[in-house]
Structure formats: C-alpha cells, structure tokens
C-alpha cells in the first residue's frame, strides 16, 4: 500500500516492538497522542504504558535515560520532538552514547535510537527548522541516518533499532506526508552505511539526502543530461565507496543539503572526493546548501531552502564548466 514517511516510521516501530519486547519508545507527547507528528500513534494502545512512555520535558534525561536503558539491555527508541531541541542533549550523545562501548571496551554499549524530525519548510517558529547533521556526524561512535523515502524509512529505522551502535535518526519532516510509495508489510532492513543510487547516469553525480532528495530529483527532471543521483542515507560513517565510484565514473559532482554551507557535510564529501577522485574531477564540485545564517522564520524560510531551480542551475553550471 502507498504509505507516507510518517506511516513507515509507525510501521517500523510497531513491527520492532512486536518482534522484540526490549524495544521501548518514549519522549515528549509520544504516548497519549502519538506525538506531535503522529509517528507513534497507536503504540501505547498496542504495547501498553510501560513500553510507550510520555516523559517530562527533559531532553537530557530522555537521551541519557536511553543510554541507561540500552546499557541495561533494553532497546530504547527516544523521540526528540524537533531537532532544534536536541542541542541540550548534545553532551549525552558526545559524552556517553557515542563512547559507551569504547569506554568499557565492549563490556557495555548503547544500542539506542534517537529519532528527531529536522529541517525547514513547515512554517514553524524559531528552532523548528534547523539541520545540524554535520555537527553530530563529526562525533565518532555515533551513526547518523537520514531517510528520504517511505520504503527506506521503514527499513532504515528497523536497522537502527537493531543496530548495536547508537543511531541518531533524523527525519525529514518537510516530506513526512508529501510522498507516498509502497511499503511492504513484511520485515525487511535497509542497511545502515550504504548509500542508494537513485538514478544511474554518466554525466554528473548529484548527492543529497533527506528532504532535499525530492527537490534534487525535481531539479534533475528539469535537466537534459544523464545524471546519476545518490541518496546518501547514512551521513556518518558514510558510504565513501559508492560516492567515489560514481564520481570517478562521471567526473562531475554536486552535493545538495539544507544545512548551512560552512562546515556542512558537503565539505566532507568534497574532502573525500579530493582524497579519492581528485584527478577524475573535470569541474569543481558544487555545494548547493543553506546559507550561513539561522533558518529564517516562516515568512521568509523559502529563500533559505535550496529549491529545484537553484539546484538545477548549479548542476548545469557543473555540466557547463
């Protein structure tokens, strides 16, 4: 059946809770109402109030609580209501979740998932639109995953829940309900750490993830060239092999993300191409990104988001170089 990303999240959570009773879901407003985006709808009814829990307004305790549950052998899936409210818990990710296995030489670990909707485009107040994946992805020990399709969302979230490592699962809320595709009822995983080649092409490689994938595909449709499109899916540790192989083939590349330009993950991708494919490059890699400013408030945010016309123009620039 054709499902949205939100549905896919719900399916993954439901199936994993059903499959493994160590899975516990919690966060602000996730239980009684099913979350502000309804991602956790029905879970409390189905799995009860011990495994689906509304927490106090405590991002530190939600994230740190997940670390403790994970260390104790459970499989916590915590929700942070908006990624703009994850920074209070940055320390818990850096200082504990990401290094529990390392600190204890494998004796303890933190197999936990922190789900959080990120990105602009939903006409919200301050702090509801940011994309900080680049900062989190710089933390060793953490896996940062961003799906862009309903199918992948289900499979990746399942992999995240089963992952022995902590996973920060950032959800593209802008497209939570705007795209639909068939999402099988069966159990399947989409492996963490593998990028997807969405379209094969010879002329240029365009790399993106999350909500920007849709815009990228829309942009590519406007372009008269044979474009290879890669959905990175896992930001860190990323699938360097797929990225490098593609650019070695096409010789040209553009990276599209919503986060600010300076220090964004596109820089890491360019760095990787520099390391592994520099001499294949026929043109500079274009980074099509947000600007180095806070995301504007709702009345102006569209000037910030890399929309298809901008992306298409950038791709054409690279092709024309």
């Amino acid at each position, binding site marked *: 059946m054709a499902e949205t990303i939100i549905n896919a999240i719900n399916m993954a959570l439901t199936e994993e809770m059903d499959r493994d009773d160590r899975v516990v879901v919690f966060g*602000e*407003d996730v239980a*009684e*109402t099913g979350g*502000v985006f309804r991602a956790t709808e029905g879970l409390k009814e189905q799995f009860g109030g*011990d495994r689906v829990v*509304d*927490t*106090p*307004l*405590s*991002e*530190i*305790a939600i994230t740190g609580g997940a670390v403790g549950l994970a260390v104790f052998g459970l499989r916590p899936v915590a929700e942070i209501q908006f990624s*703009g*409210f994850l920074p*209070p818990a940055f320390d818990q990710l850096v200082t504990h979740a990401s290094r529990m296995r390392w600190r204890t030489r494998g004796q303890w670990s933190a197999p936990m998932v922190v789900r959080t909707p990120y990105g602009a485009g939903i*006409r*919200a*107040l*301050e*702090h*509801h639109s940011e994309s900080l994946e680049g900062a989190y992805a710089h933390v060793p020990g953490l896996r940062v995953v961003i799906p862009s399709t309903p199918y992948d969302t289900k499979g990746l979230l399942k992999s995240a829940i089963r992952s022995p490592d902590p996973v920060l699962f950032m959800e593209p809320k802008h497209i939570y309900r705007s795209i639909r595709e068939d999402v099988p009822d069966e159990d399947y995983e989409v492996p963490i750490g593998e990028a997807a080649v969405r379209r094969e092409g010879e002329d240029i490689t365009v790399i993106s993830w999350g909500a920007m994938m849709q815009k990228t595909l829309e942009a590519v449709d406007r372009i008269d060239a044979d474009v290879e499109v890669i959905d990175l899916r896992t930001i860190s540790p990323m699938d360097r092999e797929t990225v490098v192989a593609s650019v070695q083939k096409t010789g040209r590349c553009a990276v599209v993300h919503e986060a600010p*330009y*300076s220090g964004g993950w596109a820089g890491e991708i360019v760095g990787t191409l520099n390391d592994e494919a520099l001499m294949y490059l026929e043109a500079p890699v274009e980074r099509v990104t947000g*600007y*180095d*400013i*806070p995301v*504007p*408030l*709702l*009345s*102006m*945010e*569209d*000037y*910030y988001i890399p*929309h*298809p*016309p*901008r992306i298409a*123009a950038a791709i054409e620039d690279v092709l024309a170089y």
Partner: protein
Amino acid sequence: MAPNTSEAAVDLDAPWISQEDLPVETYQIIDEDGTYDSADVPDLADEEFLDLYRWMLVEKRYAERMIKLQRRGQMGTVGSSRGHEASIVGSGYALQDGDWLLGMGRETSAMLLRDVSLRDIILFWRGVEDAQRFLTEQNCMIGISVGGYLPMTTGIGWGMNLTDSDSVVTAHFGDGATSTGAFHEAVNFAGVLDAPAIFYCQNNQWAISTPFEKQTNANTIAQRGLGYGVHGIRADGNDVLAVYDAMREARKLARAGHPVLFEALTYRTEGHSTSDDPTEYRERDAVEEWLERDPIERYESFLKSKGLWDEVDKDALVAEVDEEFSAAVEAADEYGPRDVDELFEYVYDDLPPILQEQLDEMERELAELDDLEAYIERRPKG
C-alpha cells in the same frame, strides 16, 4: 512493571524528609465563590482594580481573536491563554518601568503592560523576524526553546546587580519548563548571585499532552525553591489579586537580593496550540471544573461586592478591546514585506566575506532564475 508504590510504607528509622513534611499553601485572596476578606485585598486605587479587569479582557479577547485569525489562515500556529488571564495580568501588573520580561508566548498582556504593542505580538506569531526587535526594545523577549532562556534571565539579573540597577528581571514559563536542566542551573545560580530575578511559572498543569503528575513527582513547583535556597510561593493563578499581591512582594524580595520561584496554579482550558486537540488526552470533566473557576468571572464577583461593577460597561469594554485588536491586525497586515537581503543581516555585526558572497549569489539567482521566485510563490504559505 513499576514497583507498587502504594505498598505499605517502608519501615523507616532515619529522619527522612519528604514533601509531606512541608505542606504548601496556595495563596488566595478571592476564593472560588468570589468572597474575600477586605483586609487581604491589596491597596489599589479603584481605577487600578478596573484596569486589572480590562487587561484580563484584553488577554481573553486576544486569545479568542488570534485563534480565529489562525483558522482563517492569517496566522501561524498559536497557543491560547484562555484560563490564564489572572496569572498573566496579575504578574505583569506588578512589574515596574525598567523591569525585564522574558517569556515563552503565553504572557501577552504582561508584555503589553511592558509597552509592547499588540501589532508586534501578531507579527511574532506570523513569523516576521522584526517582531522581536520591537519586543526587545521594551526589554521583552519570547524564547521558543522551552527553558533555554532561563540562564540568560539569571545573567540579566546578575547584570542588574553589577550595574546597580533597581529593576528586576522576570521569566515567565510553564510547568514543562521546570523539568529542563536549564531551569535548574538558572535558578540555582540566581540563588548564589542574589540576583533580582523572579522565575514565574504558570503551572497550567499540562505540557502539551503531558499532565503535571507526569512532569514531576513533586506536589508543587513552589517547593522546589527550597532546593535552591530561594523564596517559593504557590498562588492561585486564577485569582488576579493573589497573583498581583504576591508578585508585588516577589518584586520586593528580588530587589532585596532574594530571587523568587513563583508558581501560579492555573489550567489550560483549551488546546496547547491550534495544532493540538486536547480531547485526545484528557477528560472533559476536569476542564469543566476549571472552566467554573474562570478567573474573569471570579474577578467580576469581586468587583461587584467591592461596588465597582457599576462602573464597568462590559460590552463597551469588549468592543473597545476588539477595536484595538482589529487595529493591530490591520497594522500587522500593513507591515510591509522585508527585503531578502535582511536575511543576512544581524547574523554578525558586519557581513563576513562568506556571507557577502552568499548574499550576492542569492540575489543573482533570484534575478537570473526566472522560476525561482515563482517556485517560492507557489509554495503553500501555512
């Protein structure tokens, strides 16, 4: 699976303290039936008593009209302050010129009392960046990240001490905010600094769908003050005179170097915001109960028995307030579009080269890509 906490109490010899050892009274001047003891009534002039009433109507009509605007698509998501009128107005009325007020969006008339204009509050909820410029001109700010602005509140109070100011800084926040680490560090540090800060919690018993008893196992927020060595109080947040009177004392305490944790007990009788449907998570009964304790009606009884009601022409007042609101909406509607280059301003004091480059590029793209503006235009606006 949780242990059965209702089990017979554990046998204890040591001198344990629990919240049962410290019953917390709720300060009230006008009781639910509208009766009061004249000796307790704060010493205000008649116009001031009437003024409090007018401000509560402002708050109420503001909330109602904002939601209507939102339903008509002329406003982003907004929260309602229905039920909080006494708590908002009573606290705001006790502040003085020069005082600072940081809030979270559910304290409009307290900000209007600080000379913020209604137009700017409307602009705020429409996501117009300039709104906070105007708020901060009046030493007011709205912080969207819950609790995060409380350390800053402490810093402002600290600054007041360092500069021999005779003002106070007040932060308004909800019961949910009290569970944040930022709250804790802020209030504790204020205690150490003797900062002239009033931490004003509107305990409306809900944080979106989370009821107060899931927010904390403590019976009250006020008692938390003890843990920081600051003064705590719980006032009936639906009794405007109790709130006002205690807030006046809070201001004095703060000025004397005793920060205050103030809990106004009230109830959010509507949804958290226009995107929230409270029937999903709570029974109508409790709401009904609190609707009966309506702060405005209670204050009307007070005005009646005080002999001031005759001076009130409620319909005229409401009409007047409505007109003010309409004028503010008009002014907000007229507030012109901003230039896109404003997006790059104010990030840094100057425009670093990389921002200048990005701005130039954005302007070039907007000019050259003929479908970019069109694309943006077509995007849904709400």
